[in-house]
């Protein structure tokens, strides 16, 4: 009772928090709604991670093994928290499997939901089989072969459209999803490596390969892999009579509208707030900020805090976040949660 932290969510942030709590000699109860641990990188089948270049199943898989092998961690899969009573130092959580958990504090590593591209119908997702999302392209890279879903041919040209479901007031998504530029540069290099005859074009509004990702991903993709970057937001994706996709945009640096044929169009989908956030907010009594992510407490002296005492958060629950930073924040939240025991 006085030695347990409840961790909600088994993605990078939650796994890291649970393992940190266990390492400190305390007990963690990890509740995951899906039937396996690992979060988005495992559930969505990501390929090689940024920036390590390690396969997701190996890197995140290691985190999962560590947690599942720890005697201090109890894992509940396919389970959610349905009710929370008590306060800091003495919470009682009721789980959907009927069990209850006594915990002194709570870490929410509840993550995000991938943007659903059907909300931007003009970009052809759901209409044309050769339009796909970055997660689907990651899966294709993971499968070892880049081909057009429509007829299995090897694509001559692939377009990656950035900011799909990000930086778009038309659909109420006024945030930058932070990771998609670097992920797309990484993905473009993976495509070029696996399929050297395929040219890759990236359509962008701004390139945000922040920090050390600049040369390692943005420059490298151009210098070593000849990935082309066009400053344009695409107006629409249509189909030409020969079955190829037509991408209509303005090359804003050349200043004329252009229509270019492609074989595959990839949507670099953004990070929405977890679709369960309204429910999580209700059950845990934590506030949401105006975009729908979990509201962050004053950061300088209440790191990883939420609007409720004794409940902490980490990773993409707070807003778009990288895997590496989610892992670091998971540890930081664990530190905070431990101090409440």
């Amino acid at each position, binding site marked *: 009772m006085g030695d347990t932290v409840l961790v909600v969510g088994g993605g990078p942030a939650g796994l890291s928090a649970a393992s940190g709590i266990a390492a400190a000699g305390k007990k963690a109860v990890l509740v995951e709604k899906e039937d396996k641990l690992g979060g988005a990188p495992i559930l969505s089948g990501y390929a090689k991670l940024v920036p390590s270049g390690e396969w997701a199943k190996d890197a995140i898989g290691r985190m999962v093994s560590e947690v599942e092998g720890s005697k201090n961690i109890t894992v509940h899969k396919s389970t959610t928290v349905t009710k929370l009573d008590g306060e800091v130092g003495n919470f009682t959580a009721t789980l959907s499997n009927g069990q209850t958990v006594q915990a002194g504090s709570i870490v929410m590593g509840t993550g995000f939901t991938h943007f659903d591209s059907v909300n931007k119908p003009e970009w052809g997702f759901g209409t044309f089989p050769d339009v796909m999302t970055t997660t689907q392209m990651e899966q294709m890279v993971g499968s070892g072969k880049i081909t057009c879903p429509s007829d299995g041919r090897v694509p001559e040209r692939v377009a990656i459209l950035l900011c799909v479901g990000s930086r778009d*007031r038309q659909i109420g998504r006024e945030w930058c999803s932070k990771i998609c530029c670097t992920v797309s540069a990484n993905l473009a290099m993976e495509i070029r490596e696996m399929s050297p005859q395929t040219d890759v074009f990236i359509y962008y509004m701004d390139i945000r390969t922040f920090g050390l990702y600049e040369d390692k991903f943005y420059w490298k993709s151009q210098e070593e892999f000849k990935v082309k970057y066009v400053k*344009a937001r695409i107006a629409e994706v249509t189909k030409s009579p020969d079955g190829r996709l037509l991408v209509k945009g*303005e090359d804003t640096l050349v200043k004329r509208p252009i229509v270019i044929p492609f074989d595959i169009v990839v949507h670099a989908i953004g990070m929405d707030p977890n679709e369960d956030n309204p429910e999580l907010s209700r059950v845990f009594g934590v506030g949401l900020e105006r975009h729908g992510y979990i509201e962050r407490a004053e950061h300088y002296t209440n790191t990883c805090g939420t609007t409720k005492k004794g409940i902490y958060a980490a990773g993409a629950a707070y807003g778009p976040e990288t895997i590496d930073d989610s892992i670091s924040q998971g540890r930081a939240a664990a530190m905070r949660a431990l101090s409440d025991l």
Partner: protein
Amino acid sequence: MATYAEMQQVFEDIKDDFRYDHELNGCLNCGICTATCPSAQFYDYSPREIVQLLWTENVEQIYDAMQEKIWACAQCMTCAARCPFKNSPGGLVAIMREVAIKHGMQSAKDVLRPFGRVMLKLITTGNQLSPDMIQPDHFPDWGPNIQKVEGNLKTLRKAIPVKTLQTTDTAWEVSLKTSVEMYTIWEMTGVLDSLELMDENLFDVIDDFIDEKREEYEDWLEEQEEDDDD
């Protein structure tokens, strides 16, 4: 050539429009407006360029764009529907056009001149187009189909199954009272002032017409009173 002060004033008038801040939030320079713009496919016109000029307050280039470019916009507003910042380049063009008229710019006069017949009909009757305006030399785009509206218009109108009120010089019958009220609206909203700036001859014709109609209406009112007295 306009002085810098004049060009500055044109920009101030655009910026002071009550819609301006609503139509312009900033610009990410993504080009989706120009990519989707039907006019940009055919003319030297780019909605992104218009937004950029306004956002960067480039008064000389704004003035220059008002000489020709802004008149290429079809006001379809697809740009506004697509802009990730929810700007309305088409809405900004509408403001610029109104300011061009207010400043009596030659470009506005040149663009509006071919619409004289429509303006006359619209301002005097409230109808944009009437059967008697559909004449072969004005509608080359109809091709051979124009034959179908040649002949006795009154008879042809009767053949239309829906109610047409049998008028040929308007699309529907406009009551005298409605017309006079409409003239007051044109007057009070500044439409007639704009017209006077753009086409003085047309304004004179319309102004005389309005005076006549108003007299007619006064006479009619008097008749009514007399009838009531009886």
